[in-house]
Structure formats: structure tokens, C-alpha cells
């Protein structure tokens, strides 16, 4: 790596780490979570980046270079159609196959009891042994090829596990190499390691489907609670083993359904197990978590506040980021706040104005990272993304 790139990288890493720990770096770091924006900017269709992950990585590098991002996600187009094909996953639809080449991949959540990947009377089996349940019952349901232990084995089943396993390894290796390239070619930090989800969200997204869980919380609340408790250690382990071994970059939690709950439900089903995972990662493993609060999580700020100082980086989407800053800014770093509608339809001047305000209020004493509210898709205009960079360079220095 050219010497000056190494220097740029080290500066950015330091800037990123300092801001994450809610301290004052030399400048506000630019840390966009960008998905389809990168592919469009690099001239690729949704189909190309979903089928060929090297193109997805390359698109990110293009943007990281041109927009001088300090830190970013190495690839937010996280579905690779190879893996989908090898495991025969039924819940993804892929551009160029089931979808128009220019439409992003889609994940279909089970919509009714019949389609649910876990049935209403299977809580006990899940609670008893989550891994056995996933391998023996869930996998055969979500895969076109995998069969359960009660069925006779097939060639397709063997090939699915074999090819799926190999492609997981291939992708994992490719991500490692892509992180390295992002560093040596762009001087940009790969900003997250392992992902976490709240146990309840796993139940809603991947097992029962939200509609079914919405009834379960009334019909069999104890089981829902126990299921969340049973999933908790696995989700913790998942994050821990996927986390950056050098502990420089955080893991991220993608918060889905908690905003849709009443206080009682949040307290019972959502919060306790999620809280435990985050605290464990922080206290036992020294790993920070990006609290990616999808939607508006302001009503739960009093709970989030209970987390140990610096254990999370609070990402604000539709919430009021200034209020978030008032309430938890002394405990946690904060990211986000640039409205996506403005990136899509506003002018560069308007974007700059918003960024300036964010820097001067939320970022006043450090602990702020520049990013949009939600994941940046192809609706964002390049000139507005450029304005975000310019504003950060212009007003973001301390």
C-alpha cells in the first residue's frame, strides 16, 4: 500500500474510533451506509451486483474514493444470488431471475400461518434446541433442496449443504479481501463487523412472520418470551464470533419491530434479551454495537439510556436526532440525520445546510458521525452525496 494511503487509513481509523467512543476526533467522520446508490454510481444494474459480489465491492470502492468516505460498509447488497441458489433459499427473489434487472433483491416475510417457516405449535421445539430446530425443521422449509432427518436423503440435499457451505466460505474470504482492498486502495475503514438482531426480530422476520407473532403475543405470550430467551445466547455468539477480532470496529444491530409495540410488550418481548446481548458484548468482549434504529425509536429512549456508556453508537432514522442528542448525547455517539428525501429531491445547498446544522448541534462536542437517516439507495443524487462530503470537510473540523 502506498505510504500516504496507509497514513490516510490510520487517520480515518482513529477518527472513526474516537467518534464512536463519543469523543472529539480531528473532524466529524463520514460514515454512510450506502446500498444501491453505490451500484448505480458505478454503472451496475441491481442484477450485476447481486450475482457478482466483486462488482458490489468495486462499486463501494468507487464511491469511497470519489466521496472520500472515512468509513463505510464493504457491501450493503448483502444477498449474493450464488448462495441463494446453492442453498435453494425460497424467501429471496433475485433481480434478473424473478425480478426486473433494475429492482433490488427482495426478501419475503411469511404472510400467514400456512407460509410460516415455524408453525404456531412449534415453540417448544425451538425453545428446547434452537440449532436442531433450525437445521431439521426450518432449513427444509426455507430451502428448495434440503430435506429433514425424517425424510430419505437426496442428492440435491447433499449438494445443497456442500455447495452452500463452500459458497459461504467463498463469500467470507472475498469479504476479507475486499476489506483489505478498501483499505489499501481507498484508505477507507470497513465500518462494521458482525450483525445482530433482537431475538424478537428473528422470530418475526425469519421464523413466524410478524402477523403470526402479533397473534402469538396474545395467544401464547409465555412461549414467545421463552423463545426470545432461548435465541438470545445464539445471537450473542453469532455477533461475537463475527466481530472484528482487533475490536476496532463495532457490530451492528438492525432494529425492526420494537417501535410497533406497547410499553408492556416492549418490556416483555423486545428489550430484556436485546439489552443482555448488547451489555454482554460490551462488558465481556469490549465490542460496541451500532444501534441502527430503523424508523422512529424515540419513544424507547428511556430504555436505551439504561445501556452502559459508550456501549452503542445511536443511529437515528426517522426519530428527532436533536432530541436523541439531548437525551443520550452524553452517553453515546450518534450517527445519521440527513433526510433521504432531501438526498433524492433536494438541492446540494439544502443538503449542505442540513449537514452543517447537524455538525453544529449534534456534533458540537464530538461523538457524531455523518450519515443519512436510512440506508442510501439509488434515489440519492450523486451531487447531493457530494454535498454531504463537502459540508463535512468544510464545517466538520474541530
Amino acid at each position, binding site marked *: 500500500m502506498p505510504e500516504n494511503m496507509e497514513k490516510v487509513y490510520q487517520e480515518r481509523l482513529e477518527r472513526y474510533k474516537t467518534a464512536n467512543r463519543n469523543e472529539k476526533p480531528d473532524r466529524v467522520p463520514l460514515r454512510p451506509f450506502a446500498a444501491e446508490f453505490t451500484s448505480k454510481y458505478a454503472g451496475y444494474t441491481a442484477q450485476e451486483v447481486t450475482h457478482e459480489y466483486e462488482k458490489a465491492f468495486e462499486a463501494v470502492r468507487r464511491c469511497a474514493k470519489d466521496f472520500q468516505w472515512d468509513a463505510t460498509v464493504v457491501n450493503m447488497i448483502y444477498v449474493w444470488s450464488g448462495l441463494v441458489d446453492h442453498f435453494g433459499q425460497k424467501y429471496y427473489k433475485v433481480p434478473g431471475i424473478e425480478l426486473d434487472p433494475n429492482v433490488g433483491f427482495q426478501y419475503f416475510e411469511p404472510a400467514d400461518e400456512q407460509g410460516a417457516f415455524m408453525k404456531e405449535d412449534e415453540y417448544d421445539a425451538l425453545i428446547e434446541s434452537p440449532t436442531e430446530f433450525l437445521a431439521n425443521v426450518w432449513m427444509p422449509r426455507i430451502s428448495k433442496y434440503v430435506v429433514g432427518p425424517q425424510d430419505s436423503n437426496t442428492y440435491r440435499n447433499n449438494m445443497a449443504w456442500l455447495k452452500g457451505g463452500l459458497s459461504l466460505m467463498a463469500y467470507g474470504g472475498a469479504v476479507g479481501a475486499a476489506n483489505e482492498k478498501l483499505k489499501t486502495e481507498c484508505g477507507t475503514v470497513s465500518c462494521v463487523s458482525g450483525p445482530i438482531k433482537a431475538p424478537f426480530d428473528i422470530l418475526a422476520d425469519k421464523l413466524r412472520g*410478524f402477523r403470526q407473532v402479533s397473534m402469538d*403475543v*396474545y395467544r401464547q405470550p409465555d412461549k414467545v418470551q421463552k423463545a426470545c430467551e432461548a435465541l438470545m445466547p445464539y445471537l450473542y455468539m453469532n455477533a461475537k464470533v463475527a466481530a472484528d477480532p482487533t475490536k476496532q470496529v463495532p457490530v451492528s444491530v438492525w432494529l425492526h419491530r420494537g417501535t*410497533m409495540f406497547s410499553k408492556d410488550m416492549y418490556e416483555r418481548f423486545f428489550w430484556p434479551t436485546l439489552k443482555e446481548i448488547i451489555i454482554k458484548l460490551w462488558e465481556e468482549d469490549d465490542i460496541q454495537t451500532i444501534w441502527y434504529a430503523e424508523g422512529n425509536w424515540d419513544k424507547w429512549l428511556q430504555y436505551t439510556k439504561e445501556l452502559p456508556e459508550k456501549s452503542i453508537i445511536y443511529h437515528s432514522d*426517522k426519530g428527532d436526532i436533536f432530541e436523541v442528542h439531548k437525551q443520550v448525547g452524553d452517553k453515546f455517539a450518534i450517527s445519521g440525520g440527513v433526510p*433521504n*428525501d432531501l438526498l433524492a*429531491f433536494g438541492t446540494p445547498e439544502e443538503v449542505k445546510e442540513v449537514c452543517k446544522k447537524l455538525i453544529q448541534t449534534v456534533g458540537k462536542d464530538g461523538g457524531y458521525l455523518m450519515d443519512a437517516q*436510512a440506508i*442510501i439507495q439509488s434515489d440519492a443524487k450523486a451531487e447531493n452525496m457530494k454535498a454531504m462530503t463537502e459540508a463535512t470537510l468544510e464545517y466538520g473540523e474541530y
Partner: protein
Amino acid sequence: MSNNDIYEALVNLEEKKVKQLVSQSLEKGMAPEEIMEQLQKALIEIGDRFEREECYVPDLIYSGAIMKDAVELLGPKIKEKGAEAKGKVVVGTVYGDIHDIGKDLVVMLLQNAGFDVVDLGVDVKPEKFVEAIKESGAKVVGMSCLLTISFDAISKTVKAIEDAGIRDQVSIMIGGAPVTELVKDKTGCDYYGKDAIHGLRFVSEAYS
């Protein structure tokens, strides 16, 4: 049994009690229409509570499920009869987007209020919206959009409606988490509803 029992039970989301009361009332000769009226009133109350943040998305979903079972008990007669619909509305999630929980709530509240909803589902192409508007003669079309990437699909749908020469016939409302007034203006829609209740109000006005 007082006259409001079924209403109360549904408002309180007491699934078993609702079923029991509906069966008992039928046995005692209560008119299915009367039972239906109580059930519908309860759903409207739940919708109002949702707006006041006294009840939440899972409650809406659950109440919908309880309602469905109760209507089954009332038998096919009541379904055929039904009150005269207040008007037709076409609703769908725009092309490229499969989020449907918010859209389904909009559909549910509209139906509860007595509108006849043509639900096009998710990932709906502009042509399909146009076709449905033409076929139903709906005065309002509602688009749900949860992905900023699909802002473009909103614009394209509006354009398709214009090209089909039916823009004057329909009011277009949009909603979904990333949608804002700015998005409404830039895509050429008529109304942005920040939640399902606002959508219902807009439709009610259009048909008033």
C-alpha cells in the same frame, strides 16, 4: 348479556369471549346484522385508539384476525348482504417494494369504515394500478412506499395514470415510513398520509 358485550370483548381483544358471545347471541336469535354492527364499531374504536397511541400494530392485526373468525360464524348471508359500500379505493405497495404491513393496515381501516378496497398487494407495476382504477372507477388510489429506491416507482405510476387520461378522475395519496410532503410534491401526488388514519380521512373526504 348487555347489548354492548360483543363490542366490549372485541375492543379488549378477548378472542375466546368474542367467539362465545357471537355464537350465544346467534343462538338467542340476535340478528347477524346487529352483531356485525357491534364488531365493526369495535374495529373503528380500535383504529381511533391506534391514532391516540393507546393501542399498537399487533393489536390491529390481532383484532383483524378475531373479526375474521367472528364473521365466519355469522355465516355467508351477512357477507353477501353487507352495507352499501361508501366508495371504491385502489391500494397497493409500489413496484420494487414488498413491505406490506403498513399497507395492510390502511386497507383494513378503509374496509372497517365501509369502503370497498381493491387491494393489489405488493410490488405493483404502474400498469396494474391504472387497470384497477379503470376497472373499479375508484376515486382514490393509495400507494404505499417503504423504500426510497421506489420513489421513482411512485413518479412512474403517476405518469402512467396521466398517460391513461384518468388523472382527473382519481386523487392519489401516498404513505409509508420514508414518504414526506416533499416526496408527495416531487412525485406529483395529491396527498401524503402520515398514518393509516390520515389515509382514511382523506378517502372519506373524497367521497363526502
